[in-house]
């Protein structure tokens, strides 16, 4: 059984204008899947529909076998599907520790979870008492990812974790996500524009264009294959 199974998803922000035109993808347990595509292809919209922030007009989303279409976002999050939105959205006036604890609200064994995550994210351990707004862009991105992991999700959705990061930090994010997969056995659904990140983290990649899935590849096949990417992304 797939961890996440999306069938024929149609919808958008307003009833009249669809952004997604029948998207079908699935993610297996412990698998990492990337969604590549240009801006405006509907990638972020797809993540927002899956996490319940936007109701789809048509189609079905099943998470661990249960239908979650139309379920409210906080219930979906509690069911173990976490969403790290685009653009390093951390609570800038709160400390790093409080940011992390907010991510684990309502789940058991929060402090142990925090300890475990700080082993994976050593950068954050030194900064626990600092306000999140004082972190650099890369550190804020790490914090956002760690916060998403605090609820012990079985599937973590990441929206452009490499956007606006320096080349070196992009490398670090790739390494970090690989480590999270290895150690926490979390499945990933990753929206990316950077093929190197997709190839470095994911097993498979879907390519989206104008609200449709136009291709599916082994993620490694995309790396360094500029022709293939240009054909897909335009």
């Amino acid at each position, binding site marked *: 059984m797939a961890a996440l199974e999306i069938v024929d998803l149609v919808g958008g922000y307003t009833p009249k204008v669809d952004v997604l035109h029948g998207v079908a993808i699935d993610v297996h347990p412990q698998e990492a899947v990337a969604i590549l595509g240009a801006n405006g292809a509907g990638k972020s919209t797809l993540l927002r529909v899956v996490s319940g922030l936007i109701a789809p007009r048509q189609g079905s989303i099943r998470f661990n076998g249960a239908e979650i279409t139309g379920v409210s976002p906080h219930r979906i999050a509690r069911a173990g599907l976490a969403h790290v939105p685009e653009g390093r959205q951390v609570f800038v006036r709160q400390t790093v520790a409080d940011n992390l604890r907010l991510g684990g609200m309502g789940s058991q064994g929060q402090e142990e979870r925090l300890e475990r995550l700080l082993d994976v994210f050593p950068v954050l351990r030194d900064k626990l008492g600092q306000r999140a707004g004082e972190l650099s862009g890369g550190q804020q991105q790490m914090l956002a990812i760690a916060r998403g992991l605090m609820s012990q999700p079985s599937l973590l959705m990441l929206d452009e974790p490499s956007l606006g990061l320096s080349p070196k930090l992009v490398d670090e994010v790739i390494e970090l996500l690989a480590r999270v997969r290895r150690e926490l056995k979390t499945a990933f659904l990753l929206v990316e524009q950077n093929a190197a990140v997709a190839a470095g983290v994911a097993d498979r990649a879907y390519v989206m264009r104008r609200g449709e899935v136009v291709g599916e590849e082994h993620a490694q096949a995309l790396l360094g294959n500029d022709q293939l990417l240009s054909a897909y992304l*335009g």
Partner: protein
Amino acid sequence: MGRRRRVYVAVNIALALVVLVAVPTWPPHLIGSANTTLLSVASLAAIWAIVAVGTGMFVNLSGLPTLAQGGLWGVGAYASGITIIHLDIGFWPSLLFAAAIPALLALPIALVALRTTGVAFLVVTIAFTEFIVLLITNLSITEGPRGLQAAEPPGSIGPLEFESLSSQYYLYLVFLALAIALYAAVARSRFGARLRAIRDRERLARSLGINVLVHQLIAFELSATVVGVAGALLLLQQQVVTPELFGSLQFIGIYLAIVLGGLTVLGGPALGAWIVLFLPLWIGSDDPNMSLLIYGVLLVAAMLVLPRGLLGALKGWTAGAAEPAPAAEPGPGGGDVALPPPVERTAQPLGDVLLEATSVKRWFGANRALDGIDISVRTGEIRGVIGPNGSGKTTLLNCVSGFLATTDGAITYRGEPLQGRRPDSIARLGLVRTFQEPEAFGSFTARESCELIVASARSREAVNEQLPEGADAVLASCGLSAAADLPVTELSYGQLRLLGVAMALSCRPYLLLLDEPAAGLTPTDAVALRDVLLNARAAGVTLVVIDHDMSFLLPICDSVTVLDGGTKLAEGEPDAIARDPAVIAAYLGESFAKRRAGMLAGEKG
């Protein structure tokens, strides 16, 4: 506007005119109330409508919620009354005072209030209105709480006499028509377009050389004049005015009219005034508490059912089949439109120093975002600026473009110090910047955005004559011709990025500062952007480009400056920078170094 729609609007205006003009001929007790006549309510409604139009004009074009117009309305009424009584002048000369004194008083309050936005702006304007009410309640010249009486009918103008109530009613209608005409003229002028641009995206407007304060101030003054004149008319109609008429709570009735009728539609506020005044009477209540209750319910209902107001909703329905416009084709210029031929990057002799920053510091508390940066950019150069996140790249750009004051250090552009200049003033010198997130004026099309700037760029202090003039030429040079008439909200991300550059080029700058222009672009869009930048350089524009995409940035740069922790880590030609171990360690990373080595090996093999 389509022909059918034009006819429809004309028919509606004609109908409204017939109804309004016919009011005095109607049976006076049509509204079923013993102590108010139809004519007096209609007269009051016309005056309210003028206040609503004057206020709505400012609120709609500036996006700022003001209650100061309540006090200014009162100032107009009292200015008229006091000059009639104490200067012994007639109604017509007193109108001049009713227009000028509110405008004069509006100046200091606007200068204070316009430094704020949102709730703070609202609070400052409420405070002003309450202060005015307090003043007129306590001064002796205003006759205090009893109110000021002045029953002076306007003298006749030629054959026109204003003794009768119905002729005075027509006078109010004429002033209402003038107010609406003024609103229409302002809204359609270039000045109005710049105001809307400021409302849509203030910092973008600043970056393109628009003086925000001056524009908002003029709009506020116009609004103060209109409501001031309406004050004189109110005194004429009521024959006595009391301070509490002009309190901020009372003024909420005007807001109800504006919202109910439709803020964004020209005739909306005026229509709303009529509804607000007549509805309680039709419902048949003289009880002020009852009408307050009705106001409240109406306001809530209007917000829920008709967020764009009655007239706004009507406009929406009759604009008919508001078909969603065809979705913009992704990619620059809609895909099939040829870009201008790309210019190969050629070695170009560099000119004199254009921009020079010397030991620039910018501290935020203990955080030293810039800690002594020296950078010198020469005419004709493309300078890349790279560095880790948080190294101070955007802060440097903000300091140069005037959006941030420096803590220490000097910045000179064309030999002149930039210190103390505001962003719009710097932009008018031909130094223009873009923003990290693509920004656009939400209520404009791509062409309108560029036209707005082209028009205001003509009178600039420094204009690069080599760059194309005219919005269409600029849009074509950026490959946006096919998207020119699309609302900016329908542009794809890549097109928005290119529009940002097109708007900056519309200023015809000498120096262009770009903050991550390639972030989030597809490979095709990135190539289009590269060509736009190289073409701009060929037309004599010097460029400073921040970006994290090395495959985009390094090939177009003459030299690269690397920042780290607010200081300069390295500077030099792109090749040398890409090899620099310190830069690899701090920024590029080992995998970049490996890929680069691989690329070089590939070239050799």
